[in-house]
């Protein structure tokens, strides 16, 4: 598997670090009476078999956070975007 970083081009897997699901959203505020949204954000995952949107870090290259769309069965990479332009939530 290789990822095509928008800045560095196609690079081997060893240069990247995986963070996880890019679709989870950090709740806007904290309500001690209702922590459910935070529990979901921190712990719960859809873990799909198929297309998955995920965050990777290009530590061995330009140090950008990337949002990657990848299939978890075929490992086909559909797109790689800079996370800040993908506005994919999380942080």
């Amino acid at each position, binding site marked *: 598997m290789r990822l095509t970083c928008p800045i560095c081009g196609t690079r081997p897997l060893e240069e990247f670090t995986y963070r*996880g699901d890019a679709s989870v959203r950090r709740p806007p505020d904290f309500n001690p009476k209702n922590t*459910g949204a935070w529990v979901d954000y*921190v*712990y*719960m995952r859809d873990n799909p078999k198929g297309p998955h949107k995920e965050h990777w870090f290009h530590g061995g290259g330009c140090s950008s956070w990337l949002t990657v769309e*990848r299939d978890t*069965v075929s490992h086909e990479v559909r797109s790689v975007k800079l996370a800040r332009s993908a506005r994919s939530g999380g942080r």
Partner: protein
Amino acid sequence: MQLSLSQEFSIAAESNFAYQTDSSLERAGQRQVVRAAMDYSVFNLISQGFRGHRGWPRAWRDPEPKPRYDAVIVGGGGHGLATAYYLASEHGIRNVAVLERGHIGSGNVGRNTTIVRSDYLLREELPFYEWSLKLWEGLSRELNFNVMFSQRGVLSLLHSDGDVDDAVRRGNAIQLNGSDAELFSRDKVLRMVPLLDPDNGRFPIYGGLLQKRAGTARHDAVAWGYARAADRLGVDIIQNCEVTAIRRNERGAAIGVETTRGAIAADKVGLAVAGHSSRLASMAGLKLPVESHKLQAFVTEGIKPLLDTALVFGVGHFYISQSDKGGLVFGASLDGYNSYAQRGNLAAVEDTVEAGLHLMPALKRLRLLRHWAGVMDMTMDGSPFICPTPVGGLYLNAGWNYGGFKATPASGWCFAHTIARDEPHPLARHYTLDRFARGYAVDSTGAGPQPNMH
């Protein structure tokens, strides 16, 4: 280490057991073979030997699914089969089916590196794993099937003063929790494993922590042994039967499953599908604190005895043992990203081999025979689930990370209790789904909610 051209991406089916009856080859609906009770006695072994081992009857039936069971267990891996066995043997619930989408033993129970130990750090984990080790010690006798449990010890290597301090703490915790651990000096380690590179510049050997009662077992035999013993108590083992939906009544409780072989009603549904837990849970509208990841394992060509213990090289997660056929069996870290593919990437192969050569330079001359991967539930704290779920009648056994083979007996034991009594087993009471919301994660590495770090 060279990768040989004949390298296969296949499961670790080292089938040197002539009595294996591969029921996956037999199509559903085929005439059921009447089982003659035939044991693996010396007499039968010799007489079969003269007949080319062609006369063994099948070791368990191949029944058609019944329309209704008291309980169905989804997943015919080690945990599902052990659960069915203990439901029948400990709780008298015998109208039980195990539903397996492929053939039993084709999942992680047949793909793992077979290390069995109980040297866990936390109070929430050790008593459970220690009970598992005790069950292992009597398992061949209990199942009347040789699972080849070999208590050859598991030796974890230490490479710095910090490592030694940590091992002292861990060893004390293990002893306080009622299990065995022994601190080894550098000399003792080198006497036990002479092929180690002692003066390795980066990771010199400072000592080791040994658990003597730990060891290895024969993975397939564990699946076959539990299957045969459960079958003899009346459990139906139904292969080539994929569960595609969970049926629920108007109150939301589970009342059965839809499968590729038709609908099956059940009072209770237990999930034990290893890497596919999120998929099955989602059929009942549940989301789990789980990511599916894959781990690879490797075996070399068979050689004369080289290593008589199981060795853990914490640097790089590397562990190695020698199978009874002579192959060195080893593995290391996860590939690292969500995956349901039972095949691994080359970056992890390189990493693993590097770690192995660091540890024992002599491995360089060996050829790698096969390597393969298994899909596992990696959880947010590295610990499993054996618990009821918010859906009535639905029970969960999941989240085994890369440590579930050793847990097989205790996991089946506790899960059978949970299904029979509708409550967590005392030994597994920390392994519930709500522990994250309550702030009671069982995280022995302290890695936090990042599944690929556990």
